[in-house]
């Protein structure tokens, strides 16, 4: 009885061993390739889930099934307008064909080295045809699309699919940046000057207009004053004339007397002969 128990235990143990050796799981983030003595079994990679293999003669190689990164080193590029720029790009890729991938590059590092070669040269080719402003602004999307397309074609034989090659940063080397800063400064200085001169211009116009209005206002007033005074003089003259015309002789007489009275005031020296009517009776 004891022997049978031991036998059963051994059988169970052996069974468990065989089972664990022949079963394997592939995670949702992975894909796997079964190799039988170095030769791939089946033409497709295994997706996530529980799978079986023959122990000892088959082994499993795992690959990442996710979208992977390749963050390239910034690359100095010359544009057609002879400007230098540092272009920092990244690529998103995934292992489309694990068998090809395994045969050609084997590891993610290997793949990244390939991508580095391709992206670097394609970036130079693509960007070398454009001006700086086209790269930065006008044709960025177009350039990236073409870059992605070309990279995808070139990397395809490695069992890799490129989803996206994207230009992350486009920076200028320090000396070019300095030139730009200088230009920006000059532009702003020009703008500041313009603002101030415009201000002065407007102010001068306003002041001149105000001065003009003042001068005209006063001149108008003076003109009106003269008219009014003239009217007054005219009216007064009329009044005098109306009254005095009744007896010009008498007016002349009275007015002369008044003039004498006013004109001969204070220490006037009178030298008279008794012929004067005033002294008629003096004689």
């Amino acid at each position, binding site marked *: 009885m004891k022997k049978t128990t031991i036998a059963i235990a051994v059988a169970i143990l052996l069974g468990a061993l065989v089972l664990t050796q022949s079963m394997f*799981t592939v*995670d*949702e983030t992975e894909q796997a390739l079964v190799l039988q003595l170095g030769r791939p079994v089946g033409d497709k990679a295994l997706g996530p*889930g*529980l799978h079986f293999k023959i122990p000892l003669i088959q082994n499993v190689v795992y690959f990442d*099934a*996710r*979208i*992977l990164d390749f963050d390239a080193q910034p690359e100095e590029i010359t544009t057609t307008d002879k400007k230098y720029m540092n272009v920092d790009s990244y690529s998103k890729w995934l292992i489309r064909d694990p068998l090809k991938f395994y045969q050609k590059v084997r590891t993610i590092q290997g793949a990244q080295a390939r991508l580095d070669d391709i992206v670097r040269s394609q970036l130079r080719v693509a960007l070398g045809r454009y001006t*700086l402003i086209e790269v930065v*602004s006008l044709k960025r999307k177009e350039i990236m699309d073409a870059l992605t397309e070309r990279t995808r074609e070139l990397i395809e034989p490695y069992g890799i699919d490129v989803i*996206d090659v*994207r230009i*992350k*940063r*486009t*920076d200028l080397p320090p000396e070019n940046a300095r030139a*730009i800063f200088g230009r*920006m400064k000059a532009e*702003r*200085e020009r*703008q*500041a000057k313009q603002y*101030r001169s*415009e*201000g002065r211009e*407007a102010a001068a116009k*306003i*002041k001149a207009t*105000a001065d003009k209005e*003042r001068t005209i*206002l*006063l001149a108008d*007033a003076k003109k009106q*004053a*003269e*008219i*009014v005074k003239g*009217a*007054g*003089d005219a009216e*007064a003259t009329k*009044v*005098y004339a109306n*009254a005095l015309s009744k*007896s010009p002789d008498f007016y002349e*007489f*009275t007015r002369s*007397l008044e003039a*004498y009275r006013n004109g001969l*005031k*204070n*220490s*006037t*020296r*009178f030298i008279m*002969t*008794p*012929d004067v009517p*005033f002294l008629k009776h003096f004689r």
Partner: protein
Amino acid sequence: MNWDWEKLQKQRQGQHSPGGPPNFDDLQQQFEKFKRFKAPGWQFIILILVGLWLLSGIYIVDPDEVGVVKRFGAFDRVTASGPHYHIPYPVESVLTPKVTQIQRVEFGFRSVGSSRLSTFQQGQSREVPEESQMLTGDENIVSVQFIVQYMIKDAKDFLFNVYDPTGTIKHAAEAAMREIIGKNKIDDALTTGKQRIQSETRDLMQFILNNYKTGVQIVAVQMQNVHPPEQVVEAFKDVASAREDKSRFINEAEAYQRDILPKARGEAARIVNEAQAYKGAKVRKAQGDANRFLAVYEEYRKAPSITKKRLYLETMENILSDPAAEKLILSDDALRKSVPYLPLEKLPRAGKTAPAKQ
């Protein structure tokens, strides 16, 4: 295992009587008893282990999480918050990503004492120029500091599709912001275009991340501090003060205008009024003089000769009665003789001098 168990039991026995010396009889008895129960003990242990194993399948999903269950590594199901059960290891396993939480990534600066919830405060953060400086569409350089807020929209995609979701979000954010800034002019980025740039960047980021099937939802892209690079910031500030100067000049001129024009209007009114006063006075004086003349004339007409005489004499009297008036009366002969030389200067000028008599 058997041996371990016995040992354990022995230890337990020992602990049962912590006081006085161990009772060997009792111990022996217990040991025998234990030996008899050996077989059921085995099963019991297995039962407990199986039970524990089964219990290990219980998991709780918090309100801010979802449960993502994998069976043999493959995605199986998503469970909502609350208690759940999965077939224990190694068949099923569960991941509980936090899907309601809004994550925050900073670009161009790092908050000091970086708490994820801290808001941007000038001076409380450190700038990272290589991240913040970017080229604009008019070949200028602008420094943009921004944050991106995102949350997990699809836990399955988030967990399984992309190797490094956080790194991918960072890449996409930098690429998107630079692409959008590259399409804009520096003045738009600095002033009125911010809102539009933010939403365009968010849209572009979302597009990029959807393309990678990251399962991430961009909640917001917020520009925190957008300013010209340090090297030119003074010039930019000067433009702002120049704009201020401009309106100051204009204001000063308007103040001048508002000062002198009313004064001039007042002066004009004064001049006109003076003229009117002159006119009024002149006319009234004329009327007065005329009336006076007419009145005298009326009386004169009644007795012209005598009135004329009277007026003449009165006037002469009036004139000559002035004590300052010098009077010199010469006869016709004397006058005739002295006309060729009349030393007027030598004549005494005292008013009291008696008139010379012939």
